[in-house]
């Protein structure tokens, strides 16, 4: 089978690692070969977390610049920073809720304008799905379920060879019991928003 290459970027604490492990579990349940690598740039200390996931026959664990089929960004400026992973055929999914880096928060840097950011991504990639995942996560009853909202949006694009039902099964097995319901609901809201 062909390989689908997915890059996920997030800021420490956004639940990127749970999202990628859910996808890995879903691939396992679907009998699809999967490989993943993570770079934690000191996540707990405010750094960027990047996961690369390869579904299919590839034997590499990483994705070169320009070679992602799908990019999911949990934070808008990080999505923009990761644009180098994309090419003209890449589908980009981004959360629109900014978490400005500390440098910006203390007035020592400028956060990109969100409209301009989306226009730039649209101009460089094949398509952009932009949603306020924090809003949907709150709607789902748990602000921390941003990761599940974005997973829903990702699956809706149809770019991954994995069915929504299988991802939900993986969410149920990987989430803490208390969060299963809100995580599933967050997934559904993300799935619905990414039309």
């Amino acid at each position, binding site marked *: 089978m062909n390989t689908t290459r997915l890059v996920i970027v997030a800021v420490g604490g956004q639940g990127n690692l749970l999202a990628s492990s859910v996808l890995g579990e879903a691939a396992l349940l679907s009998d699809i070969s999967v490989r993943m690598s*993570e770079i934690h740039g000191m996540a*707990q200390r*405010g750094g960027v977390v990047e996961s690369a996931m390869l579904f299919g026959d590839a034997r590499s664990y990483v994705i070169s*610049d320009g070679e992602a089929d799908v990019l999911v960004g949990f934070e808008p400026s990080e999505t923009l920073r990761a644009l180098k992973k*994309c090419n003209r055929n890449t589908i980009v999914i981004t959360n629109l809720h900014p978490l400005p880096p500390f*440098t910006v*928060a203390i007035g020592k*840097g400028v*956060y990109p304008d969100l409209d301009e950011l989306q226009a730039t991504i649209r101009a*460089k990639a094949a398509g952009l799905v932009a949603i306020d995942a924090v809003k949907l996560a709150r709607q789902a009853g748990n602000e921390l379920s941003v990761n599940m909202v974005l997973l829903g949006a990702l699956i809706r694009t149809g770019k991954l060879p994995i069915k929504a039902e299988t991802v939900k099964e993986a969410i149920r097995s990987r989430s803490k019991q208390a969060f299963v319901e809100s995580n599933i609901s967050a997934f559904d809201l993300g799935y619905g928003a990414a039309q």
Partner: protein
Amino acid sequence: MNKLLTKERGRKMFLLGNEAIVRGAIEAGLAFGATYPGTPSSEISANLFEISQESDLYFEYSTNEKVALEVAAAAANSGVRSMAIMKHVGLNVAADALMTLAYVGVKAGMVVLSADDPFMFSSQNEQDNRYYGKLSGLPVLEPSTIEEAKEMIKYAFDLSEKLQEPVLFRTTTRINHSTGIVTLGDIAPPKTSGDFTKDPFNYVTVPAVSRNLHIKLLKHWDEARSIAEGSPYNFIEACPGNSLAGGKGPYGIICNGVSYGYVRDAVKDLDIEGKVRILRIGFSNPMPGALIKDFLKGCEKVLVAEEGEPYMEEAVKAFAQEAGLTLPITGKGEEEFSRLFEFDPAGVRKVIARYFNVPYEPVAVPDLSDVPEVPSRPPNLCAGCSHRATFYIVKQAAEGMDTIFPTDIGCYTLGVLPPLSMADFLICMGSSVSTSCGFSKVTKKKVISFIGDSTFFHSGIPGLINAVFNNHNFTLFILDNGTTAMTGHQPNPGVDTSLLNLTGYGRVSIEDMVRAAGVKEVTVIQPYKVKKSIEAVKKALEFQGVSVVISKEMCTLYAKGLKLQSKRRYQVGSKCKNHRDCINLLACPAFYLSEGRVQIDAAQCTGCSVCAQICPENAITPIKD
């Protein structure tokens, strides 16, 4: 129960490389492990530590890698399968023991795991530890995939027992921190207790004994070489094993570790599978010379794809010379592979295409020159980190002094970043103390150095004793945050293990240790008490000779995990006159600007109160419930 103890044979799990390694070791009947934590190996230890609390496995966090290796070596020489786990630079610390342990050998299987870090994601260098195999004469194994790592660990234990030598198991970050599907096997029951049979004329390495032991080591090396020739981990593609039947075509590629995956993908993507033969080396010391010569004989041109140093390339060229072969062989070079950093699929594809003259059009990367600059997101000391408070205190107390700040390895190395800028020199674990000795001797500057609690136990103590004995003149800060924070809050000898519900541990007092080393001027500060600490530090800085300040405050992230963090949160009130000392001097990530005014994000604030104490207007106050 730790998921890696699952008994279901044949079950498939999506495991981190480090988890797969642990599972492999457990399946091999590992009974004894020791480590000093270091990324990218840390999750191996974290899992083994957890498993040791649920099973018969003995596992310890040793004070440093040399200690860990020696502890494990004794177990292996008493007939118990053991493992010592460390990051690549940790093997430098353990190297003294490793070199002569190779002479002595082992009785039960012993694996020394070295986690190398090409690109230095979390390390001070990217040394290639395969050379330790050559230097010590020990076998080296290197997995290419997560699933292979699990199987190869079992092979490593068997090989070690067969050769009666420890085996070096070399991973890279992309194995440790990648995840893949692994099929579980049976868990071998571990043999947890052993016995030591006295045999001083084989164990006590006085020169007369070592002369014989070196002869023995070279015999083992010959034996290892013949095993490497037929090892299933050295294979010519399409046909595992040492047969030449698999693969055909005039081009040869020799590869190891994760570069094997990149090569396989590149050969497929470039559609040259029919023209290329691949030799994958997984057992890389001793190199399988006969297998390599046979491989070379069938090729017109050979490329060696390996991250790091030209370790295989040099060996392959030497074997070609022995076999009288003059075919072109290359690996590292300006047009080929770099010795720097890690490989990636596109880079490997490009080199293969160029070297073998294969037409190749790289994927068009979008032109990003017009994309607005994205503000950087550097790691930062956590909100409320006690190191930030200590750095601020030292800065105030040393105002006007011409200073040098030797630092060490831990979270506090982040003090290098502005506005703290409290790091001037760093080589390796423990170097803060010893370099302070040298700096203070040859310069007229005030030397103030920083070391964490775990690093102090690891390798700071000899430097401190040296400083007392040789009468050096500097102030050492021991940043005692009660845990080994950087690598994930592992215990160290100074830790209060009762907070972790662990029993059966001793505890070493840093203050007693420092006093026992002969330091006359010892001060203990609580860095969240800013004014008092500044006064105490001023006094310590004035002292002529070695002075030590122990800055004692629990890592705030650790405190949060233990539910010991202060519940109080702070806010900026109307008295604020926008001096911004809080932001400009402390740069705590809990601050943000809103409409030109400083605010505190209560979700990030940890209640340390340091900013409240330094605010010239006393505008920062606790939020009342």
